[in-house]
């Protein structure tokens, strides 16, 4: 499950991870939560990945992995709600996992952090942490292969963006893959 704030880019957020999983031969579902449409409203996106067909069509109440794209959400929302005790929390922040745990009194799960906004600024030139976090996600979970993800990003982004933006995104994902820190 991924927490972020509503932007006009919701379409792109939706399905990269699910799409890449499907192209790797897995079964997956990717779906957003359609709630308030105002800019900046907290919004969730969901992904399920499995080796066998996924038949369930309910919302995700107990996410094994929670990604937080906007760290200011931690002040407003309990992002670990429903997450099992051994869940994984990946946060876009300049703070370390230990600092996050202490600052927000998070009791469960394993925390990982990566400064995705800075990486995005350095590589893409814009503060868009969305694709960057995918690098951290696959490093931490290992459910997908880095090369397949990068290939998919190039394929998808080349249709809409120039070479510089595509390469920036590739570098950003690689960097997040390397820089994500656990406890």
């Amino acid at each position, binding site marked *: 499950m991924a927490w972020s704030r509503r932007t006009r880019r919701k379409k792109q957020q*939706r*399905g990269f991870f*699910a*799409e890449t999983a*499907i*192209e790797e*031969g*897995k*079964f*997956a*579902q*990717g*779906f*957003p939560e*359609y709630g308030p449409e105002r800019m900046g409203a907290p919004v969730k996106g969901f992904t399920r990945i499995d080796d066998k*067909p*996924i*038949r*369930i*069509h*309910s*919302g995700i*109440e107990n996410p094994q992995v929670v990604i937080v794209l906007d760290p200011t959400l931690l002040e407003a929302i309990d992002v670990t709600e429903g997450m099992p005790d051994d869940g994984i929390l990946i946060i876009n922040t300049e703070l370390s996992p230990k600092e996050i745990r202490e600052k927000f009194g998070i009791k469960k799960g394993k925390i990982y952090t990566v400064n995705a906004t800075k990486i995005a600024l350095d590589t893409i030139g814009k503060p868009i942490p969305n694709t960057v976090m995918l690098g951290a996600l696959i490093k931490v979970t290992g459910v997908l292969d880095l090369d397949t993800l990068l290939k998919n990003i190039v394929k998808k982004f080349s249709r809409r963006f120039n070479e510089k933006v595509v390469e920036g995104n590739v570098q950003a994902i690689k960097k997040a893959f390397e820089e994500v820190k656990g406890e």
Partner: protein
Amino acid sequence: MKVKALTGNEAVAEAMRQINPDVVAAYPITPQTELMHKFTEFVADGLVDTEMILVESEHSALSATVGASAAGARAMTATSSQGLALMWEILYIAAGLRLPIVMAVINRALSAPINIHGDHSDTMGARDSGWIQIFSENSQEAYDNTIIAVRIAEHPEILLPVMVTMDGFIISHTMERVEVLDDEVVKSFIGEYNPKYKLLDVKNPVTFGPLDLQDYYFEHKRAQAEAMENAYKLIREIDEEYYKISGRKYAYVEPYEIDDAETVLISLGSTAGTIKDVVDELRLRGMKVGALKIRVYRPFPRDEVKEYLSNASVVGVMDRSIAFGSVCGPVCLDVKAVLQGTKMANLPVVNYIYGLGGRDISPKDIEKIFFELEKVKITGEVPNLPRYVGVRGEEDYVGEKKGFKIKN
């Protein structure tokens, strides 16, 4: 065959690209809008030969589709909710004129209060309009059903319009794995459309929809009912042909773990998938539970429902809409009607109304339903009014605190 990551909307748009209809007329409405975005992209890119007509309302969208179909074109459209409601009078005209239109309906709640999310209120209102209705569990089925629907609609012994439905957002906006057939395979499966009667065939003039009073109206309506009967006989053959080209076997209903099931839960659409997971879970705990998904809702699969319920001791029927003022929801009414007059007339049937306005239905909710049905089986006490699942204030409907006491 290709594996693609598609939402339900994109999957149907992809099917429409391969069908390459002569005419598509549409008006945007959430959650159908994305489907037509995608399809009009295909039109703009020159990937289809379709004459795309953008109209000012759904009433016009279906009217234009009716006109095109009567003229002899293969015509399609898509809508949701209020859009379907606005099409109402034209729905009956499309069916009465026996026009083989295929329409995707992305199920959404009806106003008021306004709600953009998925439930079956929209198509349930159209269940008696003379359209064939096929429900899809997931994106794959939405894709497959759309292609199959063309053959059903255009079969010379059927000639009826078909609605292919999917649950709004739950399927329409969820990206899933979809196996897409090759363009050529779809093209040869649906074949050329050569209607026997068409308005533009000026050498053989015909009239569509003239005045038809006490003298012949009834005969025409009787023939329309017979066409629905023919559909009930013939859909099987078309599904079988589709199996040969796709490897995916469809039928009027899909039983799941039903052979030795004492408790059977009936549903339509996306919830059927979630129920299968719950059935597996409860079977591991030793409960003899099973499920029956209704795929073809109109014509109602009366023989299949009877057959698959013949070993059941108790039945639950899930309705994602309310038939206000009726004794139960529409699907439950049909199931009860089918059992009436058979040796299963006394089979306990409990109606569960759920998921209105897109309210999530979780595996826990479904477990709770199965547990209540177990209690009904043991006590023989059958609630005679619908249960409302997942609604505030009625969380305790199973009557857990009162042991086996069934609350009415």
